[in-house]
């Protein structure tokens, strides 16, 4: 196997593991919300061990390719907080403050290019996910980005964010995109249509 192909595969695996870590954390936090909407949730399978498996998955992702997977995780965390900007978290900070702080830490640790690439890439996936989940989220009473901005605006913003992330980092864009698509497909087949992954 040529070193380039090996590097691509390792990068894709890093993205898959990072996405799985974020998915597990998200499912753990949204277990009540998903139960209300009767959505499949990994917490039902892993129980209290869900955050442990999430940590393990993130550790494996970081071991595979830290400069790719960790900024993606920081960006996921930052964007995840944006849904609850006014809510106060156990740290004592509001969602917005925590989101900004994590992004700044990411900037200091991984540089502006990696962090902005990750931010736009994750934002693109989040917007696309919200576009797909508009009806299921409506049923649970959750106002996602598609409700706030509109369906077409959400899709166009997702496309724009994806293009900006491609422009920011050509090297990591395709492994990240392929990893995200594979993960989406796996989740789709495993959970029968519920696509939320970031």
């Amino acid at each position, binding site marked *: 196997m040529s070193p380039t192909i090996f590097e691509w595969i390792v990068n894709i695996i890093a993205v898959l593991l990072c996405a799985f870590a974020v998915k597990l954390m998200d499912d753990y936090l949204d277990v009540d919300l998903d139960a209300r909407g009767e959505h499949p949730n990994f917490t039902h399978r892993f129980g209290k061990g869900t955050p442990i498996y999430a940590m393990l998955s993130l550790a494996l992702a970081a071991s595979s390719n830290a400069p790719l997977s960790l900024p993606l995780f920081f960006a996921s965390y930052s964007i995840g907080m944006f849904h609850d900007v006014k809510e106060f978290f156990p740290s004592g900070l509001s969602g917005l403050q925590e989101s900004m702080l994590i992004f700044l830490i990411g900037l200091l640790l991984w540089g502006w290019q990696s962090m902005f690439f990750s931010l736009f890439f994750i934002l693109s996936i989040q917007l696309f996910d919200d576009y797909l989940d508009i009806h299921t989220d409506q049923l649970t009473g959750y106002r996602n980005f598609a409700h706030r901005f*509109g369906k*077409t*605006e959400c899709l*166009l*913003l997702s*496309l*724009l964010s994806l*293009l*900006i992330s*491609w*422009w920011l980092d050509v090297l990591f864009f395709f492994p990240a995109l392929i990893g995200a698509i594979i993960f989406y497909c796996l989740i789709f087949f495993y959970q029968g249509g519920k696509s939320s992954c970031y």
Partner: protein
Amino acid sequence: MLLNLIIMVSILLIGYLWGKHDGRIEGYQRGVVHVPLLLREQSLEQGYCLLCKEELENKSFSNNEKTYFS
């Protein structure tokens, strides 16, 4: 190439938002004009006048309204 695509999608998004904003204002103005007529038409069809709250039998119609109901 990629930068051109970004600019194109940005213009598309701005154009869409602009069009939607203008369309919403125009739609509201049309609605303001159309809804009273529509409501009056429906109320007259149901046998009362929305404006004076009178039953149609008790009211003396104008020539136009008589034509409308005949």
